[in-house]
Structures are given as C-alpha cells and as structure tokens.
C-alpha cells in the first residue's frame, strides 16, 4: 500500500520540490482523491493571486545606492567625528563638574552624564543584539 500523501508532500509538489518518484506517488494519489485535488486547486488559486502583485523596479536615478554609499564610503571619517564629539562632551562635563561650586550644578551635570551613558549603553545593546541575530 502506498504511503499516504501529507500536507507537506502537497506543498513540495506544488512548489516543484519533489523527486520524480515522489511526484509520481503524489500524482497517483491526486488521481484517486477528489478531496486532495480540491485542496491542491485552492492552493494553486492562492498562488496565482501573488502573480498580480508587482512592484516598481528602481531606476538608476532612484536607487538607494547613494544613501548606502554615504555610510560605507566614509567609515573612518565618521568614526573620528563620533570619537571627537564624545571626547569633547566628556571633557566639557568633567570641567563643569570639577569647577562648579554649586551642588545643584554638579547634580545637573551628573544627571546629564548618566543620561548620555544610559543612551550609549542602549545603543550598544541594540547593536549587539542585531549583530548576534545576523550571525
């Protein structure tokens, strides 16, 4: 007695992923079963709907290459700018924190510093999570 055709077999048949022997087995089962033929017809009908969905093909002018290029072409410059701004802000906070005599001013500076550190940690965490998922 031949093996019964499963829903996965039907999907592989529909998508052309079966070996010739497996295909013959499914075709034999289809010839025997009206229910199976109906199920296959429904899935074929679903597939044909996707053929109606078409998308604008990007032209050379509207390509996102220029947006990508600004990120990949100047990594060194960007790294230096980020490092420079970070060092500058850190030094500024340090100077104000050391020189300020008013305890409120120190507390405000400390709050700003903690906020920046928290934001930085959040960015690093998000980047690490994305990097881990891309591995």
């Amino acid at each position, binding site marked *: 007695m031949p093996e019964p055709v499963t*829903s*996965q*077999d*039907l*999907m*592989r048949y529909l*998508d052309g*992923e079966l070996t010739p022997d497996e295909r013959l087995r499914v075709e034999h089962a289809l010839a025997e079963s009206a229910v199976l033929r*109906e199920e296959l*017809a*429904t*899935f074929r*009908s*679903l*597939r044909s*709907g*996707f053929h*109606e*969905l*078409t*998308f*604008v*093909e*990007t032209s*050379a002018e509207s*390509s*996102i*290459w220029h*947006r*990508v*290029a600004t*990120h*990949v*072409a100047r990594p060194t410059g960007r790294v230096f700018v980020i490092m420079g701004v970070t060092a500058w802000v850190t030094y500024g906070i340090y100077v104000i924190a050391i020189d300020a005599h008013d305890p409120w001013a120190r507390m405000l500076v400390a709050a700003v510093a903690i906020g920046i550190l928290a934001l930085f940690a959040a960015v690093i965490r998000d980047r690490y999570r*994305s*990097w881990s*998922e*891309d*591995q």
Partner: protein
Amino acid sequence: MQPELERELIRKCRAGDPRFYEPLVRAYEPPGLRLAVAMLGNPEDAQDALQEAFVKAYGTLARFDLRKPFGPWFFQILRNQCRDMLRSRKAKFRVEALDERLESRPADPEMGPERARQRNAARQLLWRGLERIGDEHREILVLKELQGFRYSEIAQILEIPEGTVASRLFHARHALQTALQDLGVEYP
C-alpha cells in the same frame, strides 16, 4: 548576477574599495525592496530597512563565506532588519500606505475597465489578507511566492531546517486562505 562575478566584487569590497559594492546593491535592490515592502507593508519603512541591511551587510562582508551565494545571506540580514523594525515598533505592517506607486505593471490597453477594477480589487484583497496573518506566515509566503526561493534557500534565510519549510508553508497558506475567506473570497 553570476556567482563568480559576485565573489570577485565581494573580494574587492573586502580589500577596502566600496565602489565595488555598488553593482551588488543595484542587483539586489529590486528583490530586496519587494521583500521589505511585503514584510513591512509600506515603501518608506522598506527603503529604510533595505538601506540599513546593505550597510550591515557591508560591515560584515569579512565574515561572509565566499563558497555560498550572496543572495540568501543578504536576505537573511534584511529579514532580521525588517523583524527588528516591526519589533521595535518603528514600523508596523500597514497596507494603507500601499498605493499605485508600487504597481509597475502598466494597464493593459486590451483590458476593459471592469477587468482592471476586478484585478485591482483582487490585489487589495490579497494585501488585506497578508495584513491579517502573522509576520512569520507572511515572511515565508513572500520568500516563496514573490521571491521564488527554493526550500533550501528559504531554510537558510529563516534559519530553520529544510524539512520544516514545507510544513511552515502549509500553515502560512492555510492562514492566508482563512484570512481571505473571512474577507469574502470563495475557493473551490
């Protein structure tokens, strides 16, 4: 793009010349945009996701296995980017934003207005159906039906065993069928 040419371009990018990345971006932009639009439901978020995916891919080219094709690897990064955007609520799948700008197929002069209206209605229904099913169902349908990937490639992109692809596709198609039936579509 020929695999050998792809490998050569990637080698040159790895050597530090980003100009050689341009042909890869231009080759994978149209299918990438289709995937991102179908996953996110609107072209603006899709373009942002695509740009970010290309930048990430460039940054990790050093770890890319040159014996494998670039496409599935890149689409895996893009798929993760789309999922990140959906998860972080930067984007939400919404078909309201999909409009005629997405449609490239010119109106067939032979087609009467009634047929054109029917085709447009069918397209809208399909988008509505896709909106109703889960992200997981939608992404596998898009990879199969819009991108035409083989099961082995889908397995690589989704990071699942190849044997699971058929089962996931069955459930996704079944979910879409149910969603469309709820919207009034009748099947034989």
